[in-house]
């Protein structure tokens, strides 16, 4: 194993992504991610200093829509699919702490 990514980093990244891994999974995933990142290391041989990054393979700009109201979804239909709802709102276990 190359060590491209460590167990601690995998654990950190898992928590950022709201995933929980047990010890076995942590080990397996770390190995697998190392292999993929090693392949990614192939890119290090390239001189990309003059090459700009590309976010989209299209060259569109200024795509917008007019400020017009369009009918919304029916609330009952939407809440019927919610795991838990109350008083017309989505209900979840308490959110600890304020939003960032």
């Amino acid at each position, binding site marked *: 194993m190359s060590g491209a990514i460590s167990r601690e980093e995998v654990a950190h990244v898992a928590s*950022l992504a*709201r995933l929980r891994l047990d010890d076995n999974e942590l080990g397996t995933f770390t190995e697998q991610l190392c292999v993929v990142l090693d392949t990614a290391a192939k890119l290090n041989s390239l001189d990309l200093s003059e090459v700009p990054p590309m*976010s*989209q393979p*299209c060259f*569109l*700009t*200024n*795509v*917008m*829509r*007019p*400020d*017009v*109201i*369009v009918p*919304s*979804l029916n*609330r009952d239909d*939407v*809440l019927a699919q919610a795991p838990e709802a*109350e*008083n*017309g*709102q*989505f*209900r*979840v*276990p*308490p*959110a*600890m*702490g*304020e*939003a*960032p």
Partner: protein
Amino acid sequence: MSELPDGWEMVIGLEVHVELATASKLFCGCANQFGDEPNTNICPTCLGLPGSLPVPNAQAVEFAMTLGRALNCSVEPSIFARKNYFYPDMPKDFQTTQYEEPTNVEGFVQLPDGRSIGVERAHIEEDTGKSTHLGGGGRIHDATATLVDYNRAGVPLVEIVSHPVMHDADTARAYVAELRDILLATGVSDARMEEGSMRVDANVSVRPVGNDELRTRCEVKNINSLRSLGRAINYEARRHVDLWTNGESPRQETRHWDEDGGRTTSGRSKEDADDYRYFACPDLPPLTPTAEDIAAIDAAMPGLPAARRSALAVAAGVEVAETTLTVERGLDALVIAAIEAGADATAAMKHADQNLSDGQGQLTAESFAALVAMEADGALSSTQVKTVLAELVANGGEPAAIAADMGFEAMDTSELDTLLDGIIADSPDEWARFVEGDRKVQGHFVGQIMKATQGKADGKVVNQLMTARAAQS
């Protein structure tokens, strides 16, 4: 607790979020409306349903650029970015915002006193939904459940970030007040702090006076009025000074302003904060405003408070700081026109500030100028001027005619002289005392003359006459 101990100064930067007054949301056609039943203005896009896609609202973009130009910013090509973090009021668990390439950069806000506060950027982003915490008295930490309403999710916002260049609470308040005036003048937002269409977060740190370092700062949230802004800033700055003085340092964190308790409490630690993993949103092509787009916005820009204050200051020959109230009342155009029609500037502004608190009404610049002139000539007493002015505001008209109707004839000074002769003859002892310097008897003579003229005499003129006569005696 409005000042820090000697040797310390506070460093304040403000982040102001402003809801734009568009009909529909930033990326979808749901209504942008405050106060509707929960979750009645939602669609696949603003709810972040799988498979949904965003399309930017052209009016929101135009408003954002208008706001930027009103803040003297440079309008740049921009890219929408994703700010990734988990919170139940975030339908996609990322917020679409602008990061490295925002719409507006490097502007300033001119305060009424003439000082300039630098603005680093003003970028476009989508608002989140609203969470309500059940149980625990509404306090987050003791809640048993959280309810979420996504009506607000996707509402267009502009976040205005100032440079950290304010050093006292009053300046911060003046900045926010001026920002609000600009927003109202441009029509870009109704900027109501109590409704949440303008939200202010304060970044507060302190440092020894004379130092230009930037020490640990805290972000204070939950500020719902200008008054709270001042209180929160002063509290937080003092809290920092107390810590530093005790050999400790503040933790870099987000603090929550508790209005009832008059203090800030610890919220999320910024050190534990998410890594937001910003990247350009692949669903949204860049915005590239042209020089023509920006010129059109500049051409359509209404008179902004700072420009109006400058114009009035020049016209009236006064300091910018003295024009604030007149401009706030929307009376600057009137006063300038009256000055151009010949009115004395000082007098015109004094009336605007003191006697026109309800606005211009039916009063025209010409009649205003004429009235001011009549006052200057002594043709009307100040009490009479006020009355005529009120009538002009209520019903319009022409000051001379109104004065005549009300019986406010211009009083001839020779008439007053004659009257005074008579009263002096009747009250020789009092007159002798007045000549000797007893000013207490002045009222006796003034009162008599007012009685004789049924209040039409101008008190100032009477005093002048008496003084002159006494000097001759």
